[in-house]
């Protein structure tokens, strides 16, 4: 088993809310490459965040950065041609590109309601693809 130790001094911009706190972190990341399992980074010092979510964001950003995906899918027989969707929770950044391709193939039948689940646990990410706009059926 390889044991890699990486020490880093980095500045992150938190993306949790529009403030965008600049968070400076001095951390040590130990990774066991055989199992590909990384333990929580040993943070020597962290400052610059204005709330707890910033601290949590940076920890995740170091090990496994996550993002929320938003897009549109085809709406069949609807009052509008497209229906906006989102991932219910943030998903891992490394599957983001593949997920955008998968989502772009989806379509849904009108009417739809906010919160309606289109795909449960997409790509095993733990996130569902949900509708974000109430849209009616097309009136002729």
């Amino acid at each position, binding site marked *: 088993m390889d044991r890699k130790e990486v020490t880093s001094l980095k500045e992150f*911009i938190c993306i949790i809310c*529009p403030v965008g706190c*600049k968070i400076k972190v001095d951390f040590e990341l130990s990774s066991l490459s055989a199992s590909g399992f990384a333990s929580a980074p040993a943070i020597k010092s962290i*400052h*610059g965040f204005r709330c707890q979510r910033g601290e949590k964001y940076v920890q995740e950003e170091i090990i496994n950065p996550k993002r929320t995906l938003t897009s549109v899918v*085809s709406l069949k027989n609807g009052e509008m041609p*497209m229906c*906006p969707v989102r991932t219910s929770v943030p998903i891992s950044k490394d599957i983001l590109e593949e997920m955008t391709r998968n989502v772009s193939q989806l379509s849904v039948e009108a009417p739809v309601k906010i919160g309606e689940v289109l795909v449960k646990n997409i790509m095993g990410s733990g996130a569902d693809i949900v509708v*974000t706009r109430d849209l009616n059926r097309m009136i002729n």
Partner: protein
Amino acid sequence: MEKPIIVIGAGPAGLQVAISIVKNFQNKEGFFPPVIVIDREKHAGGILNQCIHTGFGLAEYKEELTGPEYASRVLQEFRQLGIELRLSTTVIRVDENKMVTTLSPHRGLEKINALAIIFTTGCRERARGVIHIPGDRPAGIYTAGLAQKFINIDGYLPGKRVVILGSGDIGLIMARRLTFQGAKVLAVLEANNFVGGLARNVVQCLDDFNIPLYLSHTITDIIGKNRVEKVKISRVDENMRPVWGSEFELACDTILLSIGLIPENELAEMAGVKLDPSTNGAVIDENYMTSIKGIFACGNALHVHDLVDKLAVEAKEVGKNVAEYVDLSIGNSSTKGSLEFNAGTSVNIDENIRYILPHKISGKKTVKFHFRVRKPLNDVTLRMGNFQKRFPYLLPNEMSSVTIPAEYFERIDGDYLELLAVKGVKKVKGKEEDSELIQSQIVREVKIWIEKKLPV
């Protein structure tokens, strides 16, 4: 039929101000006229319907919602109050007597005599002609908001190889949006030497996809016969003049322009409402009333907002003032009313501040000022007599505000609000840092001053 209150525009500002007016009426005694919200689109929600990304409603609902989700929440409250909504209805004329002329397929042409009018007509986008980008005029040049509509509402991809001019939030959001839909965004260009949009958007829209951001650069030529083929990009100096020899080319088929939002006030102008040339929005008093009695303005139509949450706070305040004005106008209650409309004291600014609202105050009421600076400033202290507020930084892309309690205005005697760059100790959570010594930058002295003028 009694004169109604007309809200023009059913975007977030229009919906919130209508909700606020009705809720404030409910707290008062007497009979109140109806509120009618008018919008030319088929759906309410305004620009929110095409903003399918998250970032809305964090302050209000403690959740990060997409634009349509936020619109739905507001609409729920709106519907519960039973406020009349006229969609697919275009206001074609407003005059200084508050006569509103509307046109719609199902109601035809109508003239409404309004008791009060609130302009919540949002913004339009700045186009190529305004900044005189030279070159050919091929297809494939869109403003960022239009491209957003094409993708998110109509389902069209505007192009495959894109160059974006302007690093405001719309430009950054569209860089990500296009990338998600399979287009290649070659670069985002920004003429200033600082980014226009939020830092978080630089991270999640550019850094995440390794899209290069060129500060102090702009497009100096567009080449293409029927469709855009390439652009020439040059570096610019601090006077926005292209630097000779810095030019390079990028082959592309689409250009997105994200070069500014302009408040939409054609109807207001038609009615004779005075506009402030530095915002292109109405000149207002501390109650958000315009130069015409009974006509108010708020939301993006008044000044461009960064966050819908702040816009909602503004709209709620305006709704309260409108209710008070209507209360006084129809002589409902016995209360004299505490609002003084179109008071005579002007608020003036110097060239470091791009604009400040409100333009006029009575000096008798606590006022929340909103303003924007022209360039980024660090560690400034706003001082007026004994009043003081410190800002760690002021950025042009973040609307700043300061609330000055009424009692401080009594002491105005040629005093002015002075923004001075002073050295201070910056305290951020966990660690104390010394801010940079900026005595040498005292030239960044910014003045907002209030001159006592005789009432007009």
